[in-house]
Each structure stands twice: as C-alpha cells, then as structure tokens.
C-alpha cells in the first residue's frame, strides 16, 4: 500500500509564506539552515521580514525576543538540537520567563534524522521545553496538520516550541479532519476498545501502522495523536483510561521527560492502575543509520508497538 507523502518541513515554510500577508507582524529568523528548515520559502517572498542570523543560535533566540517585544510574531528556526539544548538559557529567560511571542520551530527532531548520528538526533527537546513555565509544546504529525498548527501558532500569543522530523511523512489527515483542530486538544484518528496508543509527531504514523497489525490479531486500538504535549489534553487521557484496558505512549524522544512522562504524570496523579508502557528511546544516545533501521533497532517501530500492546493486555 503506497501512502501519499509530504514533508512537514515544506508545510512549515509554505505556510509561513502563505500567511505572511494575513499576519504582517510575522518575522522569521534562521541560523544558516533556511534551506533545510524551509524558512527560505518565507525569505524569498518577504526578504525584509526574514533575518539570517548565521551560525549563532543564542543570538538568534534573544534577537527574536527583542523583535517580539515590539509586537512581532517571531518564528525562529533551526535543527531541534540547536533550537533547544544549545539555547536553553536564552529560551528560558527571553522567551518563557518574558512571555515573549516567540515561536521556536525546530526541524530534524528525533532519531529518524538518520545518518548524521546522535549529535544531530534530538531526543531531549520535548523534556527541555516542557519543563519551562509558560511554554506550549507542539509536535505536528503530518504535513496538513503542520500547516494548521503553524496557523494556530501565529494566531495564538505566547511562547511556543514546535518540532517536526526531517523525513517525508505519510499524509494522515484531510483538510476536513483538521477543520476544528485546537492547541491542547488531542485528535483520535482511530477508535478502539482494547488498548490506547498515545503518539506524537513522527510516531503517529507508526501507531497507525500498529493499529492495522493489532486489528489483524483481533485487538482494537484507539489511536490518539497528542500534537500538543503542553498543555496536555488530560481529559482525553482520562477518557482513554475509562474506555480502554491499557495505555501505550509512543514518541521519537527519550522515554524520560517527554510525552510518555507527561502521560504517566496524569495517570499517577489520578491513581490509575491501568497497564502502561512508554515506547521511546530508552535513556541512551543512538547512532548513524537509515531512519527505518534506527526505529527498528531502538524498538520504536510498529512491530515493537504491537508487541508492547500485546504484552500490556496480558496483565
């Protein structure tokens, strides 16, 4: 079965260029990666409103905050490793603490970055951004959703972090599916009664694959696309506790501090004893390789989700 593919990075750059007239206050900054993050699409259309900051990410983030202080909606982009870990203090002080209207939009998140290796495979960014007060954390799962989320980011004031991967992603949603998309409200692309798989970003596609494989084994899964990790859709999680028998989380991120942690915090505070497991990178740095090879080796791919679901349901 061939799925239609599109790149969320393209969707990001195209959307910025598309909404540039509607939001004349949008400015975009990049740190010598505009061809990869696709902010170049905005730069070509609005050269005056695009600021090339060179390989100097700390300066880029604080400059974005300065621009935002005058009423601009400042999108700042680079790879997820440089957009978070490298500039943590700048985001903490100038964006989160200052409640600046800065949208840090990162690409190349997760291990499916592939051959560049662990130096470029960001698996801690969600944890780093999630812990910051005032920060909204967003992980679009396909190109159409990325487009809608970029629009929502532009129209919603406040500090935000978003991350997409490097690779093309199968198209999951139609325009109609996304018509009522809201930040902080998870989507449920598949319904099921046995197990819930709460996934984010690139892992939503793996979860959908797992859905089909589980169905073949007579297990129905509810798939949740938790595109906003903060604020987290607690009501939806509790609904999953009520209506299914186990919960799995799936993220291209460390199992520490990301989506899985966020969901487990909700479960623990609500004294839920539902069987629960986190699919993610298990507290290690990965390595160079093809994206599919890496997702298999580090046990993130659909077959691993299936095994984990079966295991949970035997409890």
């Amino acid at each position, binding site marked *: 079965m061939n799925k239609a593919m599109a790149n969320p990075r393209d969707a990001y750059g195209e959307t910025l260029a598309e909404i540039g007239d509607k939001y004349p206050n949008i400015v975009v900054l990049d740190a010598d990666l505009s061809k990869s993050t696709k902010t170049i699409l905005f730069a070509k259309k609005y050269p005056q409103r695009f600021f090339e900051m060179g390989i*100097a990410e700390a*300066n880029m983030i604080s400059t974005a905050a300065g621009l935002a202080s005058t009423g601009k909606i400042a999108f700042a982009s680079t790879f997820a490793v440089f957009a978070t870990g490298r500039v943590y*203090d700048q985001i903490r002080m100038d964006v989160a603490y200052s409640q600046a209207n800065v949208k840090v939009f990162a690409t190349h998140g997760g291990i499916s970055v592939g051959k560049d290796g662990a130096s470029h495979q960001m698996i801690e960014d969600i944890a780093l951004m999630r812990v910051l007060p005032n920060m909204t954390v967003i992980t679009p799962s396909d190109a159409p959703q990325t487009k809608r989320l970029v629009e929502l980011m532009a129209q919603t004031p406040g500090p935000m972090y978003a991350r997409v991967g490097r690779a093309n992603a199968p198209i999951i949603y139609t325009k109609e599916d996304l018509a009522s998309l809201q930040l902080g409200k998870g989507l449920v692309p598949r319904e099921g009664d046995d197990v819930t798989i709460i996934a984010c970003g690139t892992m939503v596609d793996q979860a959908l694959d797992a859905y089909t494989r589980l169905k073949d084994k007579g297990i129905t899964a509810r798939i949740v696309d938790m595109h906003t990790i903060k604020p987290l859709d607690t009501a939806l999680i509790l609904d999953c506790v009520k209506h299914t028998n186990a919960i799995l989380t799936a993220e291209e991120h460390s199992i520490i501090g990301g989506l899985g942690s966020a969901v487990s915090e909700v479960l623990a505070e609500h004294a839920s004893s539902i069987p629960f497991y986190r699919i993610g990178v298990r507290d290690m740095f990965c390595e160079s390789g093809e994206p599919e090879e890496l997702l298999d080796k580090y046990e993130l791919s659909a077959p691993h989700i299936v095994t984990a679901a079966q295991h949970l349901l035997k409890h």
Partner: protein
Amino acid sequence: MAKQQAFLKELDLIAVKIRTHIIEMLYRAKSGHPGGSLSAVEAMVALYFHHMHINPKNPKDPDRDRFILSKGHAAPTLYAILAELGYFHTDELLYLRQINHMLQGHPVCTHIPGVEASTGSLGHGLSFGNGVALAGNLDKKTYRVYVLLGDGETDEGQIWEAAAAASHYKLDNLCALLDRNYLQIDGNTEDVMKLESIRRRWEAFGWNVIEVNGHNIGEIIDALLLASDHKHQPTIIILNTVKGKGVSFMENNIDFHGVAPNEMEYKLAMKELAEQQRALEAAE
C-alpha cells in the same frame, strides 16, 4: 554655558539621589549588588533624565526609546530611576527583593512598568536590543535602542555573536554602553579573563567606539549625541567607571560586588551621600 552648567548640576544631584535610593534599597533588602549598581548611575541618569525620548505615563508607547539593562544585577539603579520618573511609586523601592512585592532581584519585563527586558543571566541584552533595533528599521520607526553592558559580562560568547550581528545589519539606531569598571566577582577583569584591548575588539567587530569618563554626565551626553548622529554602524560608548562609585569604602572594593551594606556601613554611606548633595547644592 551657565545654563548648561545648571542642568548638569541638576543631573548630578539626581545621580546622588539615585545612589541614596540604591543604598537604602540594598540595606533594606539585605542583599543585592552595590558595586555595579553605583558605577552605572551617571550613564543611566544621562539617558533617562536627559537623552531618551520616553513617556512614563505610557510605558508601552511604540515610539519610545528603549533601554535594556543587560547587566541585570544593576536592577536597583534602574528601579530607582523608574520610580523617580513616575513609572511606579517610590514606596515600591523599600520592598526590593521581598516576597509579595513587585521589584524582583533582577529586572522582569512582565511585571514592572518601564522594564523592557527580563535580564539577570548575563550576555543576552545586546541580542535583545538588536531585535528591537531591527524591528525599528523594519517599521521605519525613529526610536533608538540603548543597551548597558557590564565589562565582565563581555566574557560571554553571546555578546560577540550580537556584536557581529549589529554590525552586519548596520544598526546605527543601536547604542551599547559598556560599564568599564575593571572588576568582576573573581577579581580584576584582566586577571579573570583578559578584555584588553577592548576598544580594538569592538572596532574589529565593525563598531564605532567612543570612550568617556563614565561619571561625567556632560561627557556622556555629548557621546550619546555623537552616537545618534553616527550612520551605518552601531556605536559603543566605553564608560570608564569606578565600581562602587560615590561611597568611599565601596569604591574599587570587590567585596561590595554582591554584598549589601550592614547597619554601620549603611549609615556611613548615607552620610557621605548627604555630604555630596550639600556640596553640589552649595557649588556655583
């Protein structure tokens, strides 16, 4: 000339008043940074009480000049000035660093009228100022942006990222001021991490450099005017200053970088400042 001297005398008196506030605030707070607060007084008085176009009644006026205190530990100086200008009541100064009160240990832009940027982690302010200056150019605004840097602060790599960017974008609506007091917590700046030749460094990054006596308000005002007229390059004014200026036993004394005066020191400092005020008032 006589008229000019009159307004400079007035500004010098304001500087003494600001210093008096600083000592009072730090004594009551029982913590804070006297040295770097006192060394920056004249520069900030020249900016706020003479040079900048600001409107305390409308702190968010989109056309206002901006001042960014990158060396956030000099917060008492900024707070005292903002209070004297009417951004908030001077009573607030008595509760610096106290729980349930507005004035935080370091500046916060979300809570305190007139504060442009949240600072306290060193090295960010110049980048922030660049952003404000870029927006000014984009929106064809005539406002100017001033960023006060500590000399020790320029150990931070981000300062030099920002220095390169301001020069690259020819931000002549931006003016940095460097509080060159030669002292940072661990000692003399040249022993901790050599900065000299600081003038050549900034020149090499493409900046217009002006050097003044940082405690001579007349010199500072002249430099600010020169900076405003200088085109196609950002300007940095190197303020040669004395850490702890205005309180004899705090001057050039690194022990007063981050320690508040005790009761005896407080009384001595207030006495000295009162004497300075009387001497200024008595002067022709």
